[in-house]
């Protein structure tokens, strides 16, 4: 909706972050490693039956605040995009069975990069950073390779 994003406007630039929760299973395993090496590298995460996490995906979008709406982007539009492109695809799934992880180990590093690429397609505002909490002790951030953005945000 044109009233929201103001990419060329003169308003101040702000960053909006939204958190989504999804639960999924995975198994860390590399076909290039032997069985012993997989166990040595991934430990219990290599359990052939898999295990799961409650992931928290935090997406940060940046843009000029529209003078008419006071917003960086339409939150409803963002939530609908996330429902279709993130939650419907990954929530209550086994990550290893999905095409995104056919050739990549389903680490949260790779998942974070995949989520960033998904939100690059969101037309309402520019994704600046994705942060994924695998557990409350582990989190991962990706800003499209722009380390400066991570430091600033």
């Amino acid at each position, binding site marked *: *909706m044109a*009233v929201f994003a103001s990419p060329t406007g003169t308003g*101040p*630039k*702000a*960053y*909006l*972050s*939204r*958190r*989504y929760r999804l639960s999924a299973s995975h198994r860390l395993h590399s076909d290039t490693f032997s069985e012993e090496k997989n166990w040595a590298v991934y430990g219990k995460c290599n359990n052939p039956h898999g295990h799961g996490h409650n992931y928290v995906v935090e997406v*940060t979008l940046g843009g000029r*605040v529209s003078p*008419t*709406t*006071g*917003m*960086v982007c*339409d*939150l*409803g539009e963002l939530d609908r995009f996330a429902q279709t492109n993130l939650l419907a695809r990954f929530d209550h799934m086994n990550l290893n069975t999905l095409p995104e992880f056919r050739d990549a180990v389903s680490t949260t590093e790779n998942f974070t990069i995949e989520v960033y690429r998904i939100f690059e397609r969101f037309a309402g505002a520019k994704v600046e950073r994705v942060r994924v909490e695998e557990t409350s002790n582990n989190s991962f951030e990706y800003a499209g390779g722009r380390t400066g953005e991570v430091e*600033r*945000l």
Partner: protein
Amino acid sequence: MILLTRKAEFSSAHYYWNDAWPAEQNARVFGKCANKNGHGHNYTLEVTVAGEVDPVSGFVVDLKELKDILEREVVSVYDHRHLNLEVPEFAGRVPTTENIAIAIWERLEDKIPHAKLHRVRVYEMPELFADYYGER
């Protein structure tokens, strides 16, 4: 340089409305946030300042002083108030999370001694927050 963050909380009412638009456009764009009777949130404010550590005190800023500044400049003005009706900067500005972060930045920018305001983060709820770094 060290970054130091202080939290504060305030609970406020607001609604989203653009006077330049007819009622049906406000309802379409802002949805349930356009209810003119208002609704409210428990906001969490995180103010991050940047500065050098004073060799004598070991502080970047005196946290008690920073707490008092946040209380005086923000919490006492916003807490248990209706943002649209009682806080002057929102008379002509929709009190979205983005605009609240910008307004708080403007309130604090010149008020912090010995340190530079780095970031204002406002959580409307744990799942939604806005950051402002003074990028005009």
